[in-house]
């Protein structure tokens, strides 16, 4: 495990060293989350690099990444821990066969740590394992009752198992929660976290991201790609392209041996940027040609 960065600048350097170009506000928020040991709650449009922050922090701090992908109806057994019922039943039968009949002893035996199956949340705070970065991804996909499970964990980095006792982290994990806002996450969760809205990057930062994430793309093409995507985000679309789409698209154009944007190439590859037919129909053709001309003039 590497020591936590001491200043905002060091945090930004740490993120950059692992391929994440953060703006100042994000670097500050990450720095605070690390120093104050508070969970980091990131909201933003899909494809703006929320999940990536957790991955980069795990790599940069040399910690293991524990990831919990949320879904509707997720319960404790899937998220935190589960008792190994088959082994418990076996242990009960064995105790009977051996003639042990002390109930308290039996209860102690079958509710030992060995019978507890750790799921991501428990694994992240397991004192016997090395420190972790816990990523709770797309929290908005889980339902409200699940959020309540999280409150104890986020406030004290501990989980109470009724039959067993409280498991508390030796080193508090770095916790990152993300949400795409398909549902509003409850205020009780928000209050325990540092909040940051991850916005689309400006042109300079997007070029820097592209240079890091798609190093094979020629400078001229990547400048035009960024200029085009930045203009596209000003259009009235149902789903704006994120940074992930920019990276994919630049890679695809480069793979097709394009050295600069042409209206035809844009029309053929628009499906990498826009994911709704209405949006594609709106941009394809004249609108794309206009944006390409603009982008070429600007880049």
């Amino acid at each position: 495990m590497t020591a936590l960065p001491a200043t905002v600048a060091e945090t930004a350097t740490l993120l950059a060293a692992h391929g994440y170009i953060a703006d100042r506000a994000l670097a500050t928020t990450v720095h605070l989350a690390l120093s104050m040991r508070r969970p980091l709650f990131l909201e933003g449009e899909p494809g703006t690099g929320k999940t990536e922050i957790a991955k980069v922090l795990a790599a940069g701090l040399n910690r293991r990444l524990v990831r919990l992908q949320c879904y509707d109806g997720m319960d404790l057994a899937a998220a935190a821990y589960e008792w190994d019922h088959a082994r418990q039943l076996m242990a009960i039968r064995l105790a009977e066969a051996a003639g042990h009949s002390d109930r308290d002893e039996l209860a102690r035996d079958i509710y030992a740590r060995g019978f507890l199956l750790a799921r991501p949340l428990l694994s992240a705070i397991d004192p016997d394992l090395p420190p972790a970065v816990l990523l709770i991804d797309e929290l908005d996909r889980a339902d409200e009752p699940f959020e309540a499970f999280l409150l104890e964990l986020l406030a004290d980095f501990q989980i109470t198992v009724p039959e067993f006792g409280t498991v508390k982290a030796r080193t508090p994990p770095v916790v990152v929660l993300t949400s795409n806002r398909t549902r509003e996450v409850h205020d009780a969760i928000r209050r325990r976290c540092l909040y940051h809205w991850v916005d689309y990057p400006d042109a300079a930062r997007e070029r820097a991201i592209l240079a890091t994430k798609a190093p094979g793309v020629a400078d001229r093409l990547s400048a035009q790609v960024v200029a085009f995507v930045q203009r596209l985000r000003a259009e009235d679309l149902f789903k704006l392209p994120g940074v992930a789409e920019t990276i994919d698209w630049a890679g695809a154009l480069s793979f097709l041996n394009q050295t600069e944007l042409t209206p035809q190439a844009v029309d053929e590859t628009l499906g990498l940027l826009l994911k709704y037919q209405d949006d594609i129909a709106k941009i394809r053709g004249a609108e794309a040609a206009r944006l390409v001309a603009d982008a070429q003039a600007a880049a």
Partner: protein
Amino acid sequence: MPGRRMTAEPGTVAANVMHFARVLRRAGLPVGPAEAIVAQQALALVDLGVRDEARAALRAAMIHRHEHGDVFDQAFALFWRDPAGGEQATAPPDAPTGKGRARATPASRRVAEGMGAPRDTVPHPHDEPPTTDAALTVSDRERLQRMDFEAMGTEEIAAAKQDIRRLTLPLTLRRTRRLRADPAGPVTDLRRTIRASLRQGGEILAIARNRRVSRPPPLVVLCDISGSMARYAQILLHFLHAVTNDRDRVHVFLFGTRLTNITRQLRLRDPEVAFQLVGQVVPDWSGGTRIGETLARFNRDWARRVLGQGALLLLITDGLDRPRDDGGSTQLAEAMDRLHRSCRRLIWLNPLLRWSGFEPRSQGIVAMLPHVDEFRPIHNLDSLRALVTLLSRPAPPRDGAGWSDRRAS
């Protein structure tokens, strides 16, 4: 400006943070002592000489929602330039920008007039003796049920409102993926079974069982408040207020030329207070209507946030959109199509349907009709009751056909 007050000794910073928290609170943001404490801890960890860093730190610590960001930034800019000036400038609640404030005042007055205050000869509801509806006889009540909202006088409206407040909305339950204990349930619960068995020295005597939890789906209401709908909207607002307070996961939006989310305002228990607040945030009461544009806006800004988890959508409008050009009705049809595909069930409530010979001729209605699951009248108490009955029955499966296609076949 690297703030003369921010680089000062710790005591001054603490005092300023408390002061700033008060300014934010007065500007309508939910900032309490907990946020102020976190903010102070955060400021100790960043370089106060760098303005952006200080702002990012305070922002991360003090606000929890994206929509509060703009108010925060304005307050920050004003406060750290001149703490006293900031306090004055942000004093009026819920008015983030000077422009918005200037517009809100006449609008809120207009809505206040529109919503229960004297209009032509209508007396103020508070002036009336509370016995009004008790005086209605049985036959009066029957007449009331069938009477058009638009034809009602003050007394009848007051009585209708009373009636509406008593309506509950038992939506068909949907099964969730969560389990609860149920002795006759289909799923075994080994954890509870084993725990119980230990009381019998490890002998399993009874198997604990679970059943899936069912709960009503989220309800989203889009209500037209343009001139032609204003009368209905006023009365339906009472219904929406009662529904919003009766259950969780209800979202209510009003639209005319613009779209306003009034869910938070309607959550207040007291209808008078709630409606007064609604009046303050709705800028376009009894104005024109741009259904296509506002629906497109809803699709873009809200649909993904509120229409998840099998939501039921009520669209209340007469559909009398007057597209300014040919593109208008195409946009309307596209927006309706998207809306229809984003929710589990879309029910259009249209007061114009009260005329039995109603033929959908208006361009707007023709554009919208193929994209709804149900098309129903809403003009009197009977139709409102019929709606409640409809919503408490399971929805027929969608077969891809819109309402107009099904009726034709």
